[in-house]
């Protein structure tokens, strides 16, 4: 079984509520340094992608976190074996007690997902396991006012998105994310 996310960009309005809920629930530090303009790690990030040209230009907001890849590059390169892919649900998790903070996973990940806080160790989305293992939804899904994020197994998500022209994100690491536009 492989769990993942579905992102409905046609519903996303770029309000960043998912980012805030993720930081709040997972107690992600707001800042690493006091340097003006710097930000702490964000396990979920809303990115605005511009396309077209005036007068047909548009901005699409897309909320992305760890892709919980089928073949995660981060797991393969981690020297300490601190990142693993859970056999039961395919979620990719990091072990803060094993990580040496070498940043090798950051360079291996095609999506720039691994991040580092003041502890020096890698941190990223863990699919809110403390919620999902109790049957609750991840904080980002639960908080989105537009219901633009959905979590579930890839089979469930594929069934759910059949009518929505959603497509699986392609890539050599097999990201577990469906996106519709």
């Amino acid at each position, binding site marked *: 079984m492989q769990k993942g996310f579905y992102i409905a960009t046609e519903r996303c309005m770029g309000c960043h509520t998912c980012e805030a809920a993720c930081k709040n629930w997972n107690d992600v530090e707001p800042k690493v340094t006091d340097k003006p303009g710097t930000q702490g790690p964000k396990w979920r990030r809303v990115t605005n992608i511009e*396309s077209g040209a005036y007068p047909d230009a548009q901005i*699409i907001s897309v909320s992305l976190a760890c892709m919980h890849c089928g073949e995660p590059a981060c797991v393969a390169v981690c020297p300490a074996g601190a990142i693993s892919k859970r056999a039961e649900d395919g979620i990719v998790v990091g072990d803060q007690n094993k990580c040496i903070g070498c940043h090798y996973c950051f*360079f291996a990940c095609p999506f720039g997902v691994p991040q580092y806080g003041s502890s020096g160790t890698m941190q990223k989305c863990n699919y809110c396991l403390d919620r999902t293992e109790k049957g609750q939804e991840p904080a980002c899904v639960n908080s989105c006012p537009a219901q633009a994020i959905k979590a579930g197994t890839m089979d469930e998500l594929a069934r759910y998105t059949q009518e929505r022209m959603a497509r699986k*994100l392609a890539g050599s690491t097999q990201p577990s994310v469906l*996106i519709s536009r």
Partner: protein
Amino acid sequence: MEGLQTTWGSLIAVDLFMGGLGAGCFVAAAMIALTTGERFKPTVRFGAWASAIAIAVGTLMLLTEVGKPFRALVLFKSFSNLQSWMAIGAWLVFGAILFNGLFALFWTESVLKWVGAGVKFLENRRQVFRTILAVLGIFLNLGVAFYTGMLLGVLPFRPFWNTWWLPALFTASALYTGVGLVTAYATLRERGEGAARLRKFLGVSVITLILIEGVVLGYYLHKMLQGSADATRAAQLLISGAASPVFWIIVVGLGLAVPLLVCLSKVSGPVKRARVVLPLLAITSCLLGGLALRFVVLWAGVPASLSSPSLVQILTGIRFVP
């Protein structure tokens, strides 16, 4: 600097440089030991100690760059995933520090005498041990030099790094800087019978290694410029972008051209004076160039802009990926 990769910074560059320098020093010292026996003992001893110390210093630099340095020191836990080139490299480097240190001890008379007083076996057969350590050490140290390139070369989403030409370049640079340092020492230190021949042989070796590094560097950049748009953009950072002053002035000018001119003048014989100044100028330039090479390669390791082309394709509606 704007547009350059800076997550891995100066300490990693120093680590990659020192690892290569140490490996090159060992290869040079071991080759001299294997071909001339005990005749040039001071040079072999210098190369052996320099190799162990350079790799150890480089490793310390790496440790200070990671988030949890003390945790990283517990090697069997922190480097347990032997599919990772960082783990492979950590064990190679650890082995090389011990191995090169042991080789250096076998070439340090005072230590040998002290140990030999208790263990006659070691004292009597020291030349056999030296030969075995030299041969095995050459392979181990070539592995260290190669690892410094493979560490970056296996990362698929960094187009400038993800090529076999990178380990080839770093190995060539490792041998050039290491042999260069041992050559400079031999030029300044060795006198007497055979010293002139040794200096000439080492000078020719350095010229050959400069030419090899120059060709590999040129072909590497050519491949990048012919490659994907991301690889081309990264290569242009070196050729005409933010890293170009360091690349052209220090890597190419000081690192390759100045030592080449010095070696050519020394080997071909027009310059008989400046016995100290020229070797010092050449080795300083060579080492600065080698260090700067690691910096510019690290800076050019910017991520592929379309790490997931399908994401952009989906969002911009250009093409759906099935």
